[in-house]
Every structure is written in C-alpha cells, then in structure tokens.
C-alpha cells in the first residue's frame, strides 16, 4: 500500500483468523469424507476401506489388490468395492452436498429476511418439495422411473413455492415481514394439502413418511452428480452476494442509498436459495435444522461478515450432516436411521437455546 498518505499501520485489516477457520473446516470435511465410509451397516476394517478408496481414487495405480487380507463377501473384492465406493462414498458425498446446500441457503435466507430464525423450512420450501414428492407417490406417476421423477417433482414443488414468495417480493408491498409471513402461511397451507392427499390415499403414506424423515441412502452417482451440479452452480452464485447481504443488514433503504438494488438483489437471492434448497431436498427429503443452525455457528466463530458467513455456512452444514450420519451409525450400529430424525434431534435443543437468547438476537441478528 505504498505511496499513500495514511500510515499503513493505522489501517485495520480483516482478521486473518476468519479465513483460517474456513480452511480448517474444509480440511476437516475432506478428512471426514475419506474416513466416513468406514461406518455402515456392514463392518469393514478401516484400513481396507482406505485402501479401496485410494485404489479407486488413483484409478487402480495404488494398492492393486485393496482387499488383500480382509474378509470379503460372496461377491468378492468387487462387491466390497461396490459397498465402499458406490454405496457409502456416494452417500457421504450426498451428505456433504446437501449439508452445504442447506447451510448456504439458511445463511442467505437469514440475511435476506434479517431474521435469525429464517431457514428453508420456515419458508415452506421443503413443504413444497414434499407435496411435489407426494404427488408422484400418491398418484403413482410413472412408477418405473420414480427414482428420477420423484426428485424432479420435489424440486419443482420447492422451486414453485419459492416462486410464490418471489411474486410477493416483487410486489410494491413486499416488505420483509410480509414475505416471511407469506412463507409461514404457505408452509402450513402445503402441509394441509399433504395431509389431505394422504388421507385419501393412505397407501402412499409410508413412502411419504420416509421422505419427510429425510434419507441419504439408496442413491447412486447419477443422482449425486445432478445434486452436485445444481448446488455447485447456485451455491457459488449465492456466495458472490456476501457484500450485498452485508449492506442489506442495514435495511433495504440504506442498502439502496449505498448502491445495492435491494429489491432486485432480494429476488435473485430468494430464487437462488430456492433452487439450492430444492436440489438438496429433492434427493433426500426433509432434513431439518441444518439450514437454521449452520449460519449461527459461523457467526459465533467468525463474525457476521456475510462474505465469510455464506461459504462458512456451506462448510458447517456439510460437516454437520456428515457428522450426523457418522454419529447415527456409531450410536445405532447396523441400523439405517433416517438422517432427518438425527439432525432434528440435535438441532431442536439448539433451536430452543436460540429462543432463549432471543432478546439479544433481536438486536444482533444472532451471534
């Protein structure tokens, strides 16, 4: 910064600590991705799992025979590789993708609504997805291609719900409070639509229940790839809006006086957050509290700068969901516990804690 009249030492800089937090999180998740496939319903020795992973990652160059010395199932080393790579790793990757999607959406929505309790579920995005999924199940739409149709309908349902909120956002009277209430009203409306559908078609209720509980399993790399692609694009776009979100925290008018087209930015962010959330819930069903809790954790650790909060929420969300999967498998070995149950189990007490601290939150937007 040579040549400036102001003494360089007098100018404060953003504390470097914040960036280190992000790097550390990223490293932890990377390690988690490699270690998590050890856990599952079928016990495999950790060193075998690592060897299989390294073998696959290196394209067969490392550990030409990864299963050497390990007990293999009837299907042989290929079967073991399938379990570790295709079943477990794809599940682990999905946990990372979905967790990141929910985390960054939650961070965005809390910023857009200037409300520490906003999250994708409060706004009815997930209810919209559930109704979309239920349509496929209840009306037996294309039974043979349900693996792709169900996520598609869920995606459309969630995005359509976001669209309704967007219409409200575009209107002249679209204050933040109105939008939030629109979302809450929409959410309970959609829940009643869902109940009605299940009341008349009770046969589909088990499958819908499964969806409501949230599940990471029973997926393949194609679905992972689709989710990854959508979340990567929309999430990256969201992460570029950190500065605008910082300014929006001062209120839409002040933000506009500083150069942010508040209404336009708000609409874009809602759209992107809807798509991101929809991509996540489409494949897994409802996974609660990740979107709500992750941004709060980041703020507490790294401050309220949205340029850090957004990527940080994605990382914390990814870590949270991955950790939830692992802990669920450790706590209930051999069981495929729906992940949504576990996140809600851990998230609800945190939510109560937030409510307890509400007096401070109302002035600080959470910390």
């Amino acid at each position, binding site marked *: 910064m040579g040549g400036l009249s102001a003494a360089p030492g007098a100018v*404060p800089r953003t504390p470097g600590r914040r960036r280190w937090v992000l790097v550390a999180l990223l490293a932890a998740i990377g390690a988690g991705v490699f270690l998590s496939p050890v856990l599952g319903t079928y016990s495999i020795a950790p060193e075998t799992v690592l060897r299989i992973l390294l073998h696959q990652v290196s394209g067969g160059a490392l550990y030409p025979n990864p299963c050497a010395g390990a007990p293999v199932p009837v299907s042989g080393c290929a079967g073991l590789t399938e379990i570790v790579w295709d079943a477990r790793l794809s599940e682990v990757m999905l946990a990372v993708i979905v967790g990141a999607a929910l985390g960054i959406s939650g961070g965005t929505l809390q910023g857009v609504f200037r409300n520490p309790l906003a999250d994708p579920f409060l706004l009815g995005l997930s209810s919209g997805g559930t109704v979309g999924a239920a349509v496929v199940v209840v009306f037996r739409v294309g039974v043979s291609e349900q693996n792709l149709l169900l996520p598609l309908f869920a995606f459309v349902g969630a995005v359509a719900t976001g669209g309704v909120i967007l219409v409200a956002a575009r209107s002249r009277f679209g204050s933040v409070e109105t939008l939030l209430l629109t979302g809450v009203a929409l959410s309970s409306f959609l829940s009643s639509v869902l109940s009605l559908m299940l009341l008349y078609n009770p046969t589909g209720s088990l499958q819908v229940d499964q969806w409501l509980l949230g599940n990471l399993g029973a997926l393949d790399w194609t679905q992972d790839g689709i989710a990854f692609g959508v979340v990567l694009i929309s999430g990256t776009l969201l992460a570029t809006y950190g500065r605008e979100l910082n300014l929006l925290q001062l209120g839409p008018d002040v933000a506009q*006086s500083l150069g942010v087209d508040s209404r336009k930015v708000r609409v874009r962010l809602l759209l992107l957050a809807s798509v991101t959330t929809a991509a996540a819930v489409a494949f897994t069903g409802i996974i609660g509290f990740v979107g709500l809790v992750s941004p709060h954790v980041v703020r507490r650790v790294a401050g309220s700068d949205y340029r850090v909060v957004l990527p940080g929420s994605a990382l914390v969300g990814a870590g949270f969901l991955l950790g939830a999967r692992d802990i669920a498998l450790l706590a209930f070995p051999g069981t495929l516990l729906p992940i949504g149950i576990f996140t809600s189990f851990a998230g609800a007490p945190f939510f109560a804690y937030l409510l307890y601290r509400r007096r401070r939150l109302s002035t600080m937007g959470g910390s």
Partner: protein
Amino acid sequence: MTAADPPLRLRGVTVRFGGRPALQDVDLEVARGQFVVLAGPNGSGKTTLLRAALGFLDPDAGSVALFGDDVRELPVIERARRVAWVPQEETPRDDVPLFDYVLYGRYAHLGWLEGEGATDRAAAQTALESVGLGDRAEDGILSVSGGERQRAILARALVQEAPLVLLDEPTTHLDIAHQLDLLDRVRSLVRDRNVTVVAALHDLNLAARYADRIVVLSRGRRVADGPPAAVISEELLARVWGVVADLRRDPRTGAPYLLPHHLVPTSPTAPGTMLGRGPVHVVGGGGSGAPYLRALSEAGYRVTAGGLHLLDSDLEAAESLGALTAVEVPFAPIGEEVRARLRTLLASATAVVVAPFPVGPSNLPNLEEVAGQLGRIPILLVRRTPGPVWDFTGGRAEALVERLRRGGAREVAGVDEVLATLAALATPRPSSTPTPAQ
C-alpha cells in the same frame, strides 16, 4: 451530468400516500455548495422530499433530477455515486466494527466481487478520523453511543464521495453538544469539499445558525424559501407551526433566534377550549398591571403584556413571569412596530385584561388596539376607583373606554373578580346548548 446541472432539482413533484398528499406540486432547485435546510412541522413532507430525491419512491406527478438526470432512470449504483444519505436512525442487525461499517460506503465504487483495496481502507480511516472516531475503528456499531453511531454514518457518507449529501433529522437522538458537533462537521464538508447538503432539521435555531438557505414546507407545500434572516419570523412560526414566539438575534452570529412561548389558540372564541390555561393579555402601565399579571400567572394562566415602556414596573413584573411583551423606549409614543407586535400578542390571546392604568397620548394606542379586538375575544375592563384623574388625552381615552363598555367588554372589580370571570368563561355554560323546555 454537466457542471451547470444543479445537484437536486424538483419540478412539480406531487406524492400521495393512499390519497393523502405528502408533497404537493413542489418546485425546488438546489445550487452547488449550498447548505439547505428543510424545515416544517411533523408531517409537512420533509422526509418524503428527501426520499423522492433518493429515488426511494415514484412521484405521482413531476420529476426529480440529480445533476440533470431523472433519478428514477439512473441505475441504483449510479445514484449512490451522486447522492449519499444520512438517515435519522439506522437499525443495524450485527455488531459490525465501525471501520467495516464505514467501508460499506465504498460499495458503489467497487467492481463486481472486487474487495476493498488499500485506497478504500485509507479513505475509511481518514473519514473516521474526520468525525473524531479515529481510535474507535474496532468498536462495534451496536456498542457505541447514539452520537458516535450517527457520526459513523456521516463518515460512511463521506467515503461514498457523493457530491450531494442528504440528511434526515440527523440530530434527533443527539444531545446539544453532539448536535453542534455534527452540524459543524457537515458545515465544514460544504465549505472544504464543496459538497452540497440538504438536511431536514426540526430545530429552527440550529437551522438558522447553519443553513445558507431554509426551505419551509407546510402540508406538503413549499411556503417559504430564502436565507435564514429573511425566512425566520414570528409570523412564520405562528402561521406554519402555530406557535407564538419571541424573535431575538444571536448576539455572536447575528442569526435569528426564536424563543417559543405558547401555542396559538385553536379557537379563541369557543369557551372552554384554550381559555382554561390559554394566554391572557394584560394591558397596563405604571404598576397597574403587575397585580393582575402575578395573580393570573399564579392561577396557571400564561400571560402576555404590553405595550409597555422600558423601565415601567409592569414590564419588570411581566418579564419576571416570563411573559412575552411589546416594548417601547421610554417616554416615546408607542410606535407602529410596537403596535404590530401588540397586535400579534392580542391575536394569540384568549382574553384581554385592561388594568386601570393612566392613559396619555403615548400609550393611547394600547386602548385603540384593544378596541380592535371587540367581539373576537372577551375583554375584561377593571373598574377604576373614582377620584384620581387618569385621562390625560382630553377625553379620547374616556371615549375609547366607553366604546369598549358598549361593545361588550365586561366591567370587573379587582383581581378576584378577574379570575372568577375568566374561570366562568372557560367553563361552557349549560344554557348555551339548546335544551328542551321544561
């Protein structure tokens, strides 16, 4: 945007909120390097005018131009490069360090995803120093006092480097020292950086002290406009704010200075409305008015007095009670200026008490002015004790008193009867409303 274009120009701007007009056909052109104050009562349209200038709302008619270009056609980011805003109050959500808060002002000057560079950081630090917060850069915006927050917002407007700065009652939440401090800083902004400032201010005395020009709004219309000395007057305050005040001059700055006294009565003739505690004017002289002034003041009435001559003991009594007065120099006949002042006082009074004062040619105008109020407000004529000569005008005073009597002035004897009569006037008489015959 050329050098000749005024920073702000409103042409026939009308803004309605649900049918209620907030601005009506307002024309305004602000020249470069001026400190313009928008004044006016609550709801007169000051904030609406500023919001229209910022492009926050679409006028129902007319146009707003910033440096020659219609504000609604400028991209939001370009507006931010031309005009900065200091709102009355900001409600930040997070405890952002002041330094970062000020840095937000650089947004309009940064490219997409461009981080703040060394130049921006230096500008923020300089701005913080220029508002006296250089050593508070790390403190959170929610942790500092209201005055410091307001100064930080001003610093943010500074780094925005906009040639026009709009302030909406920026001193509302500040104590007197911080009010002066903030306005001093704004003033020097205008002087040193040739920035144009338009500020809505409630305090007319601060406005008179700092503004180059005062624009007065009333019910959405521009009703007065000009340099403070030409705009600020007792008449303006009574007409626009409904307040009777004393106009003085600040001995150091020469700026007009208003001492508000009381509200203009809403309806002087309606019994029971303002009379209860409303201002009562006492005409006296030579010590005759003092007992009435004191008794009325003691009973809770606001009082005014005059016209009186300097050194008169009635004047001393009136001033000790904080009364507004119309005053003439000793021994001179009451002149036209004092008569006008007396008329203002009488116009805002709910009743007049005429004390038994000796009348000569110099104070005869007092009776003439009181006679002018006949039929408008109650006139209480204190009965004179027979004996001493009081009319030194060759019968003209006697004739005026006779005219008052015939015109409906009530004759009262002494202080107690004055108070009793006023109290009776203040209570609506049951007989005044038509009741069914018994």
